[in-house]
């Protein structure tokens, strides 16, 4: 082993920009490298929903606010795929890095905490948005898409993927075992998504259950997204965006605080 001592890297270093781009590149490469685990499953699952609830059962269900049942559930099912993909991406990459200890590569680097957080979250957002596009393409085999407001569609999808990427990161920070990363998706995310107005309008629920549904943050995301497509919503679209922004900011503050304290990250 010999060492050449010539210094080769005199250029200015940019831990924020280059650091973030390195993490983003790594995350996106991972999403495509293991596409059969990251992109394919939500497409297959949602296709089944389209076929069973949309085409087979949906054809026997009356129109909702003037739209066929499959047209009504497509935005909700896309949002369900976005939520699952964003959450599972960050929780698995972060927890994997923690278990393999390669999280230390990031912790010893001069990247500020917020850049590390942004790097992990970017992977979740990219995967969720890719899944959304793929699921929307598949939906074209079952119905035709109506687009009411493209900006609202994109804003709702982006904010939701950001929110659940952060939520997955918080889960990954606290998780100490593989059980710890599966409990929340199974017992919290899935029930909240199913009860978040994906398959029905809450206006058709008895008053008590309608009131209960208003406490479910996923309801607002699904309705904002649906509004972007169909121009209809069970709740105010402004309130929906306010809820999404508030929860995202709260999760961001919690994540930054956990990184600063080193909880679940450092000794």
């Amino acid at each position, binding site marked *: 082993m010999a060492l050449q001592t010539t210094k*080769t*890297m005199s250029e200015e*270093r*940019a831990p924020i920009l280059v*650091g973030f*781009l*390195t993490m983003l590149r790594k995350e996106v490469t991972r999403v495509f490298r293991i596409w059969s685990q990251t992109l394919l499953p939500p497409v297959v699952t949602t296709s089944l929903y389209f076929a069973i609830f949309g085409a087979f059962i949906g054809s026997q269900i009356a129109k909702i606010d003037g739209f066929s049942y499959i047209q009504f559930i497509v935005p909700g099912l896309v949002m369900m795929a976005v939520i699952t993909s964003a959450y599972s991406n960050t929780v698995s990459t972060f927890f994997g890095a923690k278990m393999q200890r390669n999280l230390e590569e990031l912790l010893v680097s*001069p990247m500020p905490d917020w850049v590390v957080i942004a790097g992990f979250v970017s992977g979740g957002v990219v995967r969720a948005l890719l899944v959304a596009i793929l699921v929307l393409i598949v939906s074209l085999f079952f119905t035709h898409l109506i687009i009411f407001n493209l900006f609202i569609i994109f804003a709702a999808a982006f904010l939701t993927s950001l929110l659940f990427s952060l939520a997955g990161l918080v889960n990954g920070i606290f998780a100490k075992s593989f059980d710890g990363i599966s409990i929340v998706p199974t017992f919290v995310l899935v029930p909240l998504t199913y009860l978040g107005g994906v398959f029905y309008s809450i206006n058709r629920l008895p008053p008590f259950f309608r009131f209960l549904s208003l406490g479910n943050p996923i309801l607002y995301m699904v309705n904002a997204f649906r509004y972007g497509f169909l121009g209809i919503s069970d709740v105010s679209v402004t309130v929906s965006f306010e809820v999404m922004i508030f929860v995202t900011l709260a999760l961001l503050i919690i994540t930054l605080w956990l990184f600063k304290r*080193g909880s679940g990250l450092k*000794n």
Partner: protein
Amino acid sequence: MSDGTKPAAIKIVDLKKVYGTGVEALKGVSLTIAEGEFFALLGPNGAGKSTLISVLAGLAIKTSGTVEVCGVSIDENIDKAKSFIGIVPQEFNFNWFETVIDIIINQAGYYGIPRHVAMPRANELIENLGLADKRDTQAMKLSGGMKRRLMIARSLIHEPRVLLLDEPTAGVDVELRRGMHDFLRELNAAGTTIILTTHYLEEAEQLSREVAIINNGSIIKQGSVKSLLANMNSVTLLLDTVAPISTAELQLARALPITRIDDTTLQLKLAPGETVNDYIRKLSTIGVQISNIRNNGSRLEEVFIDLIQKD
């Protein structure tokens, strides 16, 4: 230890670390290491070596005290302080599914070095550390020694001013260890401050100029290797005899500070001021001819054990 003429690469004052479990891993450690030094931090398992390294690298949060890296306080600008440090931890801590080149290039990115700038340096490190034919191999497929060299290459990609090595040659075969020693010596000669923790005291004796011995979270001895060895109470030597030692010869030698190890090996404890010549002469007069003289392990090891037992 800084001699006051060179700036300090590391300056630690009254560093304490208490873990959440209540374990007091560092009990007020103060240490100054000059730039360009080759420094060994020695101590038994659980003494606090790895905790100290972790605090310096930003992997553990200190409870109190101050730490400066190349003049930058970790309380004031931890990100800048971290940019000066390269670390080779005790445990493998890379993504097992990534290739050698990706692991190194990604690490460069985390330090703000773009790929096109880092690539030539990464290739040079890979070549110098004997990993050229494994450049595109997944980390999980490397042997133990290769994984350790990969961690060294990764730690050097951003040309750190201070290199922290936590047991870098653990589980590495003799030939590779020698190669790594040469590499580290060259790196140090080129100006990199090296801080090494090791269980191989012979390694510390061969490589480092300055040593600190830590036990139960406190530094119990610090100084140059030369000064530590000069203050040794005794030196233990092994003497190989030409022929097996007879019982009669052993009886005659009983007045000497000599112990029989086996038929052809004697152990001699040399007190300060004594010379080995005196004993060779005395043994010769009773008919014991010496064919070879060896150190009984590392001399530093004797100092180490003596200090740990006293502490």
